[in-house]
């Protein structure tokens, strides 16, 4: 691998924020790298917006330091920070045309008129709004407003672009399209993007790294793949995608393996590489396994490492996929199994006894 060492652009150290007696952020530590697409993901009220607004300079931390591009931001007002924000409401100036909106910040910088016009044109081209410069703000659709807000931030050539749920006001189709465009644009420009979202799918598809937040803390900071495959705890696991939780008990360690007893599936031995560091064996009560890691075995299916028996209790057909609810012996809740639909394979009706295949490497242990 020849990836250059990541250069940090933002350093957050020990950030807390209190509103009166309520503590919205309880000690945030993170480093965000240059050119990275970084997402803050978490449920409503976990403090994502508060953290983003602090980076932008609209709120100041109660404690902790924010360093952007090597400079401590304490006391630096929002208008002197190398960041630009795309607001959730887009905050398009209603009394200005599209071009004046986009050129707003350049005018503050006192650039010559001709240069502003050129930059604005370029920025509008970049977000596919070429030729709409003379439109009034209220003549735009939701998607167009979003693009104007983006162009207005990008034209400033900031070190970091901050986006607070920029796609949440768009309908599903447009949102999917904008996700792709936003990601492509970010990669092309190489500017750091920090995206706030509560949509895990959005975070997974767009980000280089994701910080999952709960209750004012970062629960896990990792790449999308790592987050999905190795969530650190049950909360993260159930927030990112679907996870089946099964009761389990550690029965001992021997020659680099961890012996586990999972009543619903059977007893297995896991290689230690799969066991998170610092795991207290006696605290181990549950393991996780993703729906696509369980398979219903059909005649002629590929063999799997282990096979358990279960009974189908329900199905949900999604076109490309079918989701099965399956009851496993010794487990009160049904597990979810997702199966890709293929030609010539019909859906197993509820009530059928089926063999359920699984592999030890897909077992997730939590700290």
């Amino acid at each position: 691998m020849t990836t250059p060492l990541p250069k940090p652009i933002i350093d957050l150290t020990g950030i807390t924020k209190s509103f009166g007696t309520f503590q919205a952020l309880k000690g945030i530590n993170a480093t965000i790298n240059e050119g990275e697409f970084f997402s803050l993901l978490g449920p409503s009220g976990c403090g994502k917006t508060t953290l983003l607004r602090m980076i932008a300079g609209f709120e100041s931390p109660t404690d902790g330091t924010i360093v952007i591009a090597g400079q401590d931001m304490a006391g630096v007002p929002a208008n002197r920070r190398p960041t630009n924000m795309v607001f959730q409401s887009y905050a398009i100036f209603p009394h200005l045309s599209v071009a004046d909106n986009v050129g707003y910040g350049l005018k503050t910088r006192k650039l010559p008129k001709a240069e502003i016009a050129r930059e604005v044109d370029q920025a509008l081209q970049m977000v596919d709004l070429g030729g709409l410069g003379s439109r009034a703000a209220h003549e735009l659709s939701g998607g167009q407003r979003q693009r104007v807000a983006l162009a207005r931030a990008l034209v400033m050539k900031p070190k970091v672009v901050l986006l607070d749920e920029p796609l949440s006001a768009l309908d599903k189709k447009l949102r999917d399209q904008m996700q792709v465009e936003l990601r492509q644009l970010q990669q092309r420009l190489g500017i750091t993007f920090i995206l706030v979202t509560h949509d895990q799918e959005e975070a997974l598809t767009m980000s280089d790294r994701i910080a999952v937040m709960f209750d004012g803390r970062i629960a896990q900071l990792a790449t999308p793949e790592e987050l999905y495959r190795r969530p650190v705890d049950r909360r993260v696991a159930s927030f990112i995608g679907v996870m089946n939780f099964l009761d389990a008990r550690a029965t001992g360690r021997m020659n680099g393996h961890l012996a586990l007893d999972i009543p619903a599936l059977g007893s297995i031995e896991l290689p230690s590489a799969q066991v998170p560091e610092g795991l207290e064996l006696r605290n181990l009560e549950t393991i996780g396994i993703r729906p696509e890691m369980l398979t219903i075995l059909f005649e002629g299916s590929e063999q799997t490492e282990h096979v358990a028996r279960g009974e189908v209790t329900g199905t949900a057909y999604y076109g490309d996929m079918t989701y099965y609810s399956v009851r496993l012996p010794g487990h009160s809740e049904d597990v979810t199994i997702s199966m890709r639909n293929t030609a010539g394979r019909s859906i197993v009706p509820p009530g059928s006894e089926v063999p359920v295949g699984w592999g030890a490497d897909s077992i997730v242990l939590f700290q």
Partner: protein
Amino acid sequence: MLTGERRQGLALISPTLLYSLLMLAAPLIMVLTFSFWTQNYLELDTTLTLDNYREAWSKPIYSTLIFRSLKISLIVTLVTVVLAFPIAYYLSFHVKQRKALWLFLITVPFWTSYLLRVFLWKVILGYNGVLNTALKGLGIIEEPLTFLLYNANAVVLTLAHAWAPFAILPIFVALEKIDRSLLEAAEDLGDGPVRRFFRITLPLAMPGVVASTLIVLIPTVGDFITPKLVGGTDGLMIANMIQIQFGKANNAPLGAALALSSMLIVASISAVIFLLGKRFGGKVQ
């Protein structure tokens, strides 16, 4: 073609509409008609003529009065709006709790009659009034100041005080309507507080400022109580003259012509202010 719904709507509002048309249009038409007639002592000559307008627009006394009225009203409006803006701004942006209480307090002066308030200013500004007595008591002046009362300054002061709440409220409403994230966006794009104020806050508050200006300007041009009570002879305004024509001078047609002329002038000034405000405020939707 009227659709059923529209016809129903019209039917619903028509009694009120008729009533207000009657109350508004009837006096106006009467005044308009009068202005083309002539008063011959006790009887009215109803042949149509433009003589009243000729007199109104040519005699220096009337133009002096009109100009003075306009000057006083414009100063009153300027003073009132310029003072009202910071108050409305403070209310909207810095008062976090009990905004309603503050708004309520602003309307407190309305609890006493306008006449009482004017008399109060007489008591404060008079020769032996509160201000003079206080200044004398403090040894700052020997003789009472005479420029306080019975001149145009007193009219400006009294009117500005009386109209302040009317000016504050529309500006306050306009400021309240400004989406705060617009201000943050401006700051985010590099504006300091002052630039941001002139590029975002003020243009977006313009509809309120224009409304305040017109609300104060239009009625004060026609005010006749205040100049009569605190204005002396230097502070008399066109409305006083109109009142005299309708009353003592017994020349209602001339009064009507004066009234309509000043109405026309005020209307054109208002239109100019409205257009200027729109221009500065941009294309706010």
